[in-house]
């Protein structure tokens, strides 16, 4: 079963990934097939496990101030800064719609 162009486009928007070419899409499809093997197991009446940590104790930290005050270090990573702020574009720059992009997905 192939993944539709609509789903691929939706994924590119959500995750900002670029499948780039047929090989990228194929890799995705193989990954889905791999995960689908889980359906072979009968899980009726079994509580889903959501974390391998489920038996561990969630550590609770005391409410003390132990971190922060490292503005200079944090800003070292920023390409652009203004005073002590990080600089970002004015808003989310949406990925152009499929029709407006040069992507191989159009041909699919």
């Amino acid at each position: 079963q192939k993944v539709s162009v609509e789903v691929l486009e939706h994924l590119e928007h959500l995750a900002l990934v670029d499948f780039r070419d047929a090989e990228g899409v194929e890799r995705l499809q193989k990954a889905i097939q791999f995960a689908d093997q889980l359906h072979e197991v009968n899980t009726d009446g079994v509580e889903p496990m959501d974390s391998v940590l489920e038996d561990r104790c969630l550590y609770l930290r005391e409410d003390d101030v132990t971190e922060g005050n490292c503005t200079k270090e944090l800003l070292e990573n920023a390409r652009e800064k203004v005073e002590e702020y990080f600089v970002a574009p004015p808003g989310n720059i949406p990925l152009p719609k499929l029709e407006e992009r040069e992507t191989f997905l159009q041909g699919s």
Partner: protein
Amino acid sequence: VAARGCGGVWRRARQRGAGQPGSGLGPFPRGQRAVACNARGGAVPAGKSGLAPWVPVVGLEIHAQISSNSKLFSGSQVQFAAPPNSLVSFFDASLPGTLPVLNRRCVEAAVMTGLALNCSINKKSLFDRKHYFYADLPAGYQITQQRVPIAVNGSLSYSLCIDNKMRQMVTKTVRIKQIQLEQDSGKSLHDDTRSQTLVDLNRAGVGLMEVVMEPDMCCGEEAAAAVRELQLILQTLGSSQAVMAEGQLRVDANVSVHHPGEPYGVRTEVKNINSIRFLAKAIDYEIQRQIEELENGGTILNETRAFDSKLGCTVPMRDKEGKQDYRFMPEPNLPPLILYDAKSLPANMNHQQVINIDWIHERLPDLPSVKRKKLVEQYGILPEHSFTLLNEDGLAEFFESVVKQTQMKPKKVIGWILKDLLSYLKQHSLTVKESPVSSFLLADLLNLLEKKEISSTAAKQVLAELWKGEGKTPLEIVKEQKLELLQDQKELEQICQVVIDGHKNE
């Protein structure tokens, strides 16, 4: 559930004149209401003849910042105003290799709030990731509790006055769907001139309690009253300082309208509401907008709208078009959060690692509703009075302090507190703590009145003088302005005789 919602049917709004005041703070809106909601639940025909009445439906999502020293998952400080990016740890900045570590105090705050709102506390709750891209969310996801939150199925009771005379009050209940723990995002400062956004991550990672209220309300006034009561509860518990102006309490409203008997209409989400007054205005505007749109044959889009406080209207929000797909997934770095009670308390665990719901329950302070009841029972004041006392920070304590220091009956003292003192404070925009007249001075004055050494008119004069804060005592002012009541019978007879004699010839 009888008291749920008002089954309110919408009356056509009265003409909006310029400068018409919106719903006020608390359960006592000042001035006219812009739109009327039938609190008794009877069907009210709409303004246009032949048209079916409308039922507005209002639900709320409230984010309350947890009052704690450090953040939800990191040890950086929580503070309102600080140099940009100075209260940010490597985890808050989402640098690789960092992990979340849960703050115990935040969990306790959520449990207290859940108990105060009559919720069931989930002894096992889970954390999830909610993914979306925005410059102030460096990780690209928010850690929240989508599948199993910490508390569910509670209720909040609040009161409204159903007439403008503030006499008759009615109690309503709104169901609390759930309370969840989640991270706050950083702050974006939009610089339109240079076409850029400046990002400050000081707020990123601060603990939030999201309180989800079911759509049991029908108008701005109900929503405002419910939020005000929640605010008072949070402040009483200390779990959040809930000051809206500082962003510690943020409210989003979900609004829709439908005809009675028909399914619920499409709802819109209204954001960017900065005060309780604006909350009522925004909701009432949106209800009206939807009714007009539908009556004109249009449709309502399932969209997010922002409230523009200057124009008093809602507008579609940028960057929020279309339904979001958050791709929720379990937070892989956090095991389930387990809470205990007296019965399930583990024997061999470090106390610091154990949160006991029953221990917290036993130590909850008196909630506002209980405090009000006690004030009414102890002092014989009216329920409306107890609302006003609790609505003003420090006023109830001031009142009780005066009562202790005076022989005047509490029922009489309350008049002086609510009419004279409070109106002075309001006129000069002062808080109770800033009052130039202390409880001691007021009690002193009321004692003079009670002993009949001055008249009530004179007392008001003295109060006006005391208000200047020049340090004089009531007795000094009375002597200065010669306001003493004459007690001597003979002296009074003499004065009356002189007056009568003086008019003998008329």
